[in-house]
């Protein structure tokens, strides 16, 4: 089922800001297997000129992925039928613990290709004082649901 092209330009924002936790940054760095002390040790980060630890470059996916989920639900796209096509980040400054980040998402492109749907969104992330922190462009490829047998969600089985 092709995505309704009228979604192009559609914008939505999260109701509550995402508050960045020191331990969340550490957990994420552990999960990507990156031992860089700048993600864990405030003194190491200060030696690089930062006021506190910083988050890894791909950390914004934690809240931009979550911010995109309501759109996918609205479009009737199941997670199992999507693969990630492209991802890009443009950073104004690193993310730090205590940041309260607002995320505004805009649908930048919708295009069918060979039976799949390509959906590109831009997430603009700003701090509580309005300072722009990072923008993230995500392209997902939504594939048609396989015909049969009925796939289940895979959750909790």
């Amino acid at each position, binding site marked *: 089922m092709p995505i309704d092209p009228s979604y192009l330009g559609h914008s939505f924002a999260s109701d509550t800001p995402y508050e960045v936790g020191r331990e969340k940054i550490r957990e994420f760095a552990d999960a990507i297997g990156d031992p860089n002390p700048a993600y864990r040790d405030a003194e190491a980060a200060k*030696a690089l000129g930062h006021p506190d630890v910083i988050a*890894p470059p791909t950390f914004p*996916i934690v809240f931009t992925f979550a911010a995109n989920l309501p759109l996918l639900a609205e479009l009737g796209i199941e997670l199992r039928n999507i693969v990630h096509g*492209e991802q890009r980040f443009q*950073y104004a400054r690193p993310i730090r613990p205590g940041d309260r980040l607002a995320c505004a998402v805009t649908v930048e492109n919708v295009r069918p290709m060979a039976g799949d749907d390509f959906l590109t969104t831009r997430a603009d992330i700003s701090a509580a004082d309005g300072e722009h922190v990072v923008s993230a462009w995500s392209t997902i490829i939504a594939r048609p649901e396989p015909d049969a047998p009925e796939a289940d969600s895979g959750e909790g089985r």
Partner: protein
Amino acid sequence: MTSHDVAAHDLEPGAQLPTQTFRVTRADLVRYAGASGDFNPIHWNERIATRVGLPNVIAHGMVTMALAARVVTDWAGDPAAVEEYGVRFAGPVVVPDDDTGAEVTVTGVVKRRLDDGRLQVDLTARSDGEKVLGRARAIVRIPT
């Protein structure tokens, strides 16, 4: 910058970044799903993955993207030197249900110096002989 200095000759176009090889297991994907909030079952459930037409469980693209970023951030010293970073996911990293998992090898090269002094670094990532990232590029500001 204090803790790490990239030698001047490493900043010229054509300079290679140190290549790194990473291993990704099913356990890594479960851990990443939990940390990132991306619980798409194609990254942990072989039954679902094969049903939707994938060869097996595949790694989150964002795992591969994070591994490739390591090559740049380890080289640059300060992760915040990376001002832009983008990739296209060219092929899946297929992660078998065993203890060794998949191998991802990432190489990087200084492609050019931009007018504003920042460096464009182009990355390649391969797994099982196949290219898994395309147009993988970071724009990096190395303090001088």
